[in-house]
């Protein structure tokens, strides 16, 4: 917090004297009002979702969509959501950490900015475009890989098959999610990696460490919590990502770990996007209830990530 003393909040807050100018009162009122509005907005998100979700929670199961109770309706969706996001994180994190290391420690200084821009571009591409790319390009391209996985690794529950002929599978959806969350994971890691104390790095090199040994002994231990918090931020992003999954995944209401077949569990977000436009009455309330569950899951994930980051900042 030393930096905020140097440049941030002015130490001469009382400079205008005890009798504050009317303009000062109005302006600080506006600024505080904006801050409170933001807090109110967040509270409003939780409140209004809750109000609109309640009718579904209190209604009898046979009036809800598919005649299931609310828990039975949301549980398979929550399973699909967590499965898709977890695989995406597993794929994205190693690549993101490597990309961050490349930019912070390996790439020539001159092109570092440009490389960072390229990775950030991945985050700028709208999710609808990822969806179209996933179903028209990546999906068809993945079919031979899916078939190979079924033949060679079919004994593992994830690759039991039968392999989809269109590529609209959980594995492909998760791959696209991985690409989408890679920039955020990478950005968090890069930030911290580049702050590794110079004296540690130079000490390691001076003791004869190769560059990889230096990275392994100084940068990675220093950045360990950033890898964890970045992964959790990415997980939060993947849990809530809607359009790519909506477009790519061919869904049925089942619960399965099979990642390469035509029948996949849907995710909460994709299910809302698919069903909401044609729903009315209690079905809408049910979808909003599922949205509330998604909100809660992402909230917990993000809070955990932020807690790790703030603990690290204190150190």
């Amino acid at each position, binding site marked *: 917090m030393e930096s905020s003393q140097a440049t941030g909040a002015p130490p001469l807050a009382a400079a205008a004297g005890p009798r504050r100018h009317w303009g000062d009162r109005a302006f600080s009122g506006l600024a505080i009002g904006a801050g409170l509005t933001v807090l109110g907005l967040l509270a409003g998100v939780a409140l209004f979702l809750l109000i609109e979700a309640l009718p579904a929670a209190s209604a009898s199961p046979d009036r809800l969509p598919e005649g299931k109770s609310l828990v039975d309706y949301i549980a398979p969706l929550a399973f699909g959501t967590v499965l898709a996001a977890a695989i995406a994180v597993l794929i994205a994190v190693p690549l993101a950490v490597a990309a961050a290391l490349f930019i912070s420690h390996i790439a020539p200084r001159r092109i570092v900015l440009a490389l960072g821009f390229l990775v950030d571009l991945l985050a*700028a591409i709208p999710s609808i475009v990822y969806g179209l790319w996933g179903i028209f390009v990546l999906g068809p391209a993945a079919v031979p890989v899916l078939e190979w996985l079924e033949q060679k690794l079919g004994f593992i529950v994830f690759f039991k098959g039968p392999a989809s002929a269109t590529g609209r599978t959980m594995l492909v959806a998760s791959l696209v999610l991985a690409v989408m969350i890679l920039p955020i994971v990478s950005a968090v890691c890069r930030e911290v990696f580049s702050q590794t104390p110079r004296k540690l790095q130079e000490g390691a090199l001076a003791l004869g460490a190769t560059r990889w040994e230096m990275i392994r002994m100084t940068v990675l231990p220093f950045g360990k919590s950033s890898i964890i918090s970045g992964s959790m931020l990415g997980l939060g992003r993947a849990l809530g990502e809607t359009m790519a999954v909506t477009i790519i995944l061919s869904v049925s209401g089942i619960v399965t770990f099979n990642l390469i077949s035509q029948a996949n569990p849907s995710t909460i977000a994709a299910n809302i996007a698919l069903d909401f436009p044609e729903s009315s*009455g209690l079905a809408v309330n049910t979808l909003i209830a599922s949205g509330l569950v998604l909100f809660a899951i992402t909230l917990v994930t993000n809070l955990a990530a932020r807690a790790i980051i703030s603990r690290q900042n204190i150190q």
Partner: protein
Amino acid sequence: MESSAADTRALLTSPPVGGPLWRRKAFNRVMTGLIVAAFAIALIPLFSLLFEVVKRGLPGMSWEFLTGTPRGIVGGGGAAHAIVGTVVITGVTAIISVPIGILAAIYLTEYGGKGRLRRWLTFFVDVMTGIPSIVAGLFAFALFAIFLGPGIRLGLMGAVALSVLMIPIVIRSSEEVLKIVPNHLREASYALGTPKWRTIVKVVLPTAFAGLVTGVMIAVARIVGETAPLLVTTGIVDSINTNPFEGRMQNLAVYAYSEYRTPGVMKQASYDRAWAAALTLIAIVMILNVVARLVYRRYKTEIK
């Protein structure tokens, strides 16, 4: 005793990791190669995606696509209504989000001090950046449905949903640039007897102006291509609507989705239009990102 001294000497002189030097060097090269390869793999999707969007988007791109609407035309027409919708929805979102975002950032850097509200706000802005876009859409739907009935679809609803996503981005970026305005500028202004609010308006904000504009442009680029929140708030429509307070509205992303989702009789033509809309979106996003960075480089106040 002697052995411990030998141990110490061995520890001081031994390389930090065991093994002969050639093997360590080889391992270093292997790991470096892996890292470079992983970086390259991470960028393959970017290039593949940009290539495919241009390749598949160009056939559908035409004057008719940019100026016509599908109204009254079976399986054809253009995306003018979606382009207008994108501009209106994004504009209204910016009108809501930019003042709130920048004022909240001013509160955080200029008025917050070390107070509780400041800490809460910082924390919850972080939380807000993690709200899934579809949840923001559901929130706007719930808000309007409670007061106006469940069948309601408005451009304004979409703007409210997108504001939930845009405000935290504006706050974050504005806070960053306000923080780096040097304190001596503020102190010089106070020393001349200028009240604090005039100092902020006349000294702090102009100094940070380029950074604020850049931040807003990047925030706009982030929300201009949103689909999910608009799917549940602004609906789908086939004619131009410029009034955010009445009737359905559609943006380019939702247009691309509906062309893909419900293709007409001529499937390929619909897909072509979906890709053309994707290409238009990507172009908008890229231009915003590049111009934002140029603005910053060209107009940023040199801070020494």
